[in-house]
């Protein structure tokens, strides 16, 4: 593993490895600050996907021929890679899904349907992305259960006292984000899980934003489910996973029915397959799984700690620069944050600001970031969000500050 300054001293070389960073938009070099929405991909990941279709493509698990064996091995090797990456106990506790949203829907649709009854409570927080809110809402409506929402503190961190109080005798599940995509707050998931387990509450963690920023150790956290997406951690879109503790996964009914998830089929009755295949119906997205594996290798080689250090450096630089502008109000200042900043410019609608910032070739995200209830709770119509990855630079941040200056000239 490289030394702590490796990324900074090799930044040009690293950036050269991400082809899209060489793009121009409106004739200006792209400044990509929308990493929380999706990350850019290193050439090795793109190559892995292309290489799969060029040399390896075959359906998995069923074939006796050479290619299908190779593809199956590669496919299952990535499952083991993911197991190691998040330190799950068993590889069969890793279920491939289309992404974090599907993972959460899987739990709601199977564990949820089988275990939630009328009058039960599902506890979430004000942070939650719609993907970790709507599935639970739908489940509660179906079952006559109640959705309870834990509030935040003014600095954008979770109100842990309120969380404890809201864990009641009818609370069956707590579903909480590891890192808030709108505010950047990193939640104390280990402590949260401990509190919930004391009361016999099952815990799901939405890890969409976390895999790229933190070391995730699901055994250490102790959670029952952990959902994640490849495209947030330098992998392709369309693939992600669900970690679930073996005991729970075994007890859950299947999600989608079809090929692969069965052991034996007759018209009268079908016997379901064992883990993980029970939850992987149909032909899987083999190519993207392999590309996901290449992304995890890339991240492991660079080292999550080195990545986190670089990102913190960028976050601090940007935060200091934004604080100097008296027209800017930063939204979300929790003591522990991932490398994203939400902010607003006095009296300027985030849509107006984002429109102009875009013309400078700078990609930020504006609006509610799929967290409308959070924005409502803050009395905001939206924010401008700049989210950094290790391949961003302080020169790029300087360009953002300059663009903000122009925005202020134009509107104020």
């Amino acid at each position, binding site marked *: 593993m490289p030394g702590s300054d490796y990324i900074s001293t090799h930044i040009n070389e690293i950036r050269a490895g991400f082809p899209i960073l060489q793009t121009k938009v409106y004739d200006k070099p792209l400044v990509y600050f929308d990493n929380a929405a999706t990350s850019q991909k290193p050439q090795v990941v793109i190559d892995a996907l292309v290489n799969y279709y060029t040399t390896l493509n075959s359906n998995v698990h069923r074939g006796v021929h050479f290619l299908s064996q190779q593809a199956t091995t590669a496919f299952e090797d990535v499952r083991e890679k993911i197991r190691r990456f998040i330190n799950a106990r068993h590889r069969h506790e890793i279920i491939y899904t289309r992404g974090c949203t599907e993972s959460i829907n899987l739990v709601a649709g199977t564990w949820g349907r089988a275990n939630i009854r009328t009058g039960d409570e599902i506890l979430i927080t004000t942070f939650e992305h719609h993907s970790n809110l709507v599935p639970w809402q739908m489940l509660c409506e179906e079952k006559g259960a109640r959705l309870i929402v834990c509030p935040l503190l003014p600095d954008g961190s979770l109100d842990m006292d309120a969380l404890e109080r809201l864990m009641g005798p009818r609370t069956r599940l707590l579903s909480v984000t590891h890192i808030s995509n709108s505010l950047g707050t990193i939640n104390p998931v280990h402590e949260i899980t401990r509190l919930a387990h004391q009361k016999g509450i099952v815990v799901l963690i939405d890890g969409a934003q976390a895999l790229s920023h933190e070391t995730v150790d699901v055994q250490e956290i102790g959670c029952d489910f952990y959902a994640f997406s490849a495209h947030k951690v330098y992998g392709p879109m369309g693939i992600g996973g669900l970690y679930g503790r073996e005991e729970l996964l075994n007890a859950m009914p299947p999600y989608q029915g079809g090929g692969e998830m069965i052991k034996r089929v007759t018209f009268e009755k079908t016997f379901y397959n064992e883990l993980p295949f029970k939850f992987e119906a149909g032909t899987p997205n083999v190519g993207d799984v392999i590309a996901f594996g290449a992304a995890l290798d890339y991240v492991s080689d660079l080292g999550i700690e080195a990545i986190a250090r670089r990102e913190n450096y960028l976050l601090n630089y940007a935060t200091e620069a934004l604080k100097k502008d008296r027209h800017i109000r930063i939204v979300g200042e929790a003591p522990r944050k991932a490398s994203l900043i939400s902010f607003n410019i006095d009296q300027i609608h*985030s*849509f*107006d600001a984002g*429109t102009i910032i*875009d013309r400078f070739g700078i990609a930020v995200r*504006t*609006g509610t970031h799929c967290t409308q209830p959070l924005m409502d709770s803050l009395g905001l*119509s939206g924010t401008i969000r700049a989210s950094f990855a290790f391949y961003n630079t302080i020169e790029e941040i300087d360009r953002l500050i300059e663009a903000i200056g122009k925005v202020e000239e*134009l*509107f104020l």
Partner: protein
Amino acid sequence: MNIEETTSSIVSEFDNFDDWMDKYNYLIELGKSLPLIDDKYKVESNLIEGCQSRVWLHAEFDGHLIHFTADSDAVITKGIANLLIRTYSEHTPQEILDSSTEFLNEIGLTQHLSPTRSNGLLSMIKQIKMYALAFKTKQAME
């Protein structure tokens, strides 16, 4: 001025500016000068769906012409609304239904005057045309 004359005017006004910043500046000026909508019309039922900012569109029909007023909490959206109102207000339902929106492509701000979800342009135009159709139908029934 008929609708076509208005849209030609708009296109030449934007042609005066080469620089994108100047075009946006002009659009922002137009936004700031949008005639104020009566507060009583800034209601839920007048809100246009599909915009990142809030946009209210109010329409009144005097039996012959439709009068539109609009507002938004984002200035660029107000500028866009201004252009649409200038084009479509004080015209008959039929004139509005017959008109094309090609002129928006000619202004040179297509990234933001293309019908994406965030700027609500498509939604505003759709709503204007729906009002025209509704008032035309009402007119025919009377």
